[in-house]
């Protein structure tokens, strides 16, 4: 049964149709890549799925639940988290605090519990332990007290991945997870994504790095001009000249 799907999504910005009747369904687990030239609608699709943009028409579903009109924070709570192309983090806060921020159901996030913190310290300790485990998983343990803004670009990408995991998401929507990253770090990120896939998660990522797509994607979606122009096995699709021509164009 598809976990995440959309039907006939339309989204226009003035005269530009960023999404034009897009219908997709994603399985419960796997690694799916979305590629396409700039302006194809890839990030717009991500934004609509995660509630940061409202579609002009069409619907999105997570399981049986219609998520089209939900605000972003509610969509996140259903188990779908995303990263951003321009790498959003709390740069003036330590790395550990960024990961702690992502932990769900925090008692201390209620005002009264913040002022009268009964039971908050115990939960905070557990959250710290989990956050530290996640930083260890992505290889940032030594940076846990460093300010997030002092990390390298690639390390910040790893941090955003740790934040997604801290939110206990089943579905990860990653916007260009390896763009601008050193090749060594790319390998690490891809290895982490494989591990997450083996844990039964669904990873959907937008990328321009075809080599990375070839390495880990199990399913490929090609978009252009707001439409899905091809979908299928990466190895087969990426050999088709019209796909590469559309992509390069």
């Amino acid at each position, binding site marked *: 049964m598809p976990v995440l799907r959309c039907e006939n999504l339309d989204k226009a910005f003035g005269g530009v149709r960023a999404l034009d009747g897009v219908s997709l369904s994603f399985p419960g687990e796997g690694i799916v890549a979305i590629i396409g030239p700039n302006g194809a609608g890839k990030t717009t699709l991500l934004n609509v799925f995660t509630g940061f943009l409202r579609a002009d028409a069409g619907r999105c579903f997570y399981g049986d639940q219609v998520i089209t009109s939900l605000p972003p924070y509610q969509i996140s709570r259903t188990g779908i988290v995303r990263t951003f192309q321009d790498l959003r983090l709390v740069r003036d806060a330590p790395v550990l605090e960024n990961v702690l921020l992502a932990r769900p159901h925090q*008692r201390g996030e209620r005002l009264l519990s913040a002022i009268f913190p009964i039971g*908050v310290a115990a939960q905070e300790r557990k959250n710290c332990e989990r956050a530290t485990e996640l930083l260890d998983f992505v290889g940032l343990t030594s940076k846990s007290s460093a300010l997030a803004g002092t990390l390298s670009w690639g390390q910040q990408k790893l941090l955003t991945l740790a934040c997604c995991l801290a939110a206990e998401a089943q579905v990860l929507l990653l916007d260009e997870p390896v763009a601008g990253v050193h090749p060594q770090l790319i390998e690490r990120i891809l290895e982490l994504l494989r591990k997450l896939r083996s844990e039964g998660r669904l990873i959907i990522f937008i990328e321009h790095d075809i080599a990375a797509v070839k390495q880990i994607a199990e399913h490929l979606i090609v978009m252009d001009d707001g439409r899905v122009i091809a979908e299928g096995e990466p190895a087969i699709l990426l050999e088709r000249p019209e796909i590469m021509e559309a992509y390069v164009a």
Partner: protein
Amino acid sequence: MEYLLHIAIIALCFVVLAVSLDLLAGQTGLLALSHAAFYGLGAYTSALLAIHAGAPFLLAMSAGMLVAAFVSLLVSIPSLRLHGDYFAIATFGFQMILYSVFNNWSEVTGGSIGISGIPRARVFGMTIESRAGYVLLAGVFAVVAIVVVRRIARSPFGRVLRAIREDEPFATALGKNTTRFKVTVFALSAAMAASAGSLYGHYNSYIDPSSFTVLESILVVSMVIIGGAGSVWGPVLGAIVLVALPEALRFVGLPLAVAANMRQILYGCLLVVMMMFRPRGLVGQYGLGE
């Protein structure tokens, strides 16, 4: 001595105002120019209940805080869709509206004449008559405000506020209902400002609109800037400096009329100098607008 005690009381009232504004502007990044309006709401509500309903001080103050918190919802819910400068302008507009109400709704507020005969504060069966007693009471208010803000800053709630300040979409993408946080902190900030207003009214036994103008809102913002936003002690320092420093001018030998106007010039100069050389204030974490 009485003069120094009076300055201490006023400084402590402004500590409460500055610390509560920092929760909104420093921690959450919502620069509001309406703090004096909530200060005034607390003062007027408390005074009216004390005079016309014989409400004891703590009850009248609590009512003032609730009124301010409720009114803050009328401001925050429509305004929080706005960002940065536009939000500040919206709160500025609200400040002007409230001042106009204080100044023109004569039947209730006394208009420009104000309200006199506000009874002295009575706490735990004791009526506070002396300035020393009010210094103690204001000190308690200031300590409570500092403790509350410090606890919030160190809590997961404060962590979300700072995330909102730095990158609200990031916080939203991680499942935080940022609107709820912003509305809540706005209401709390307004309620705390109202408590200071109530205290001021019962200490002074008289209030009028001239204490709750946009200039007072700007003064409180200046205290946060000069002391340092985002740190609990920055606004405390800012409040003390901006209340005490102009008073020192009285001892410089300037004529009274000149000394009074020098205060405004001094505030302006301090702000300009701080923005040029130390935008994060004396002990601040962030510059407002960074």
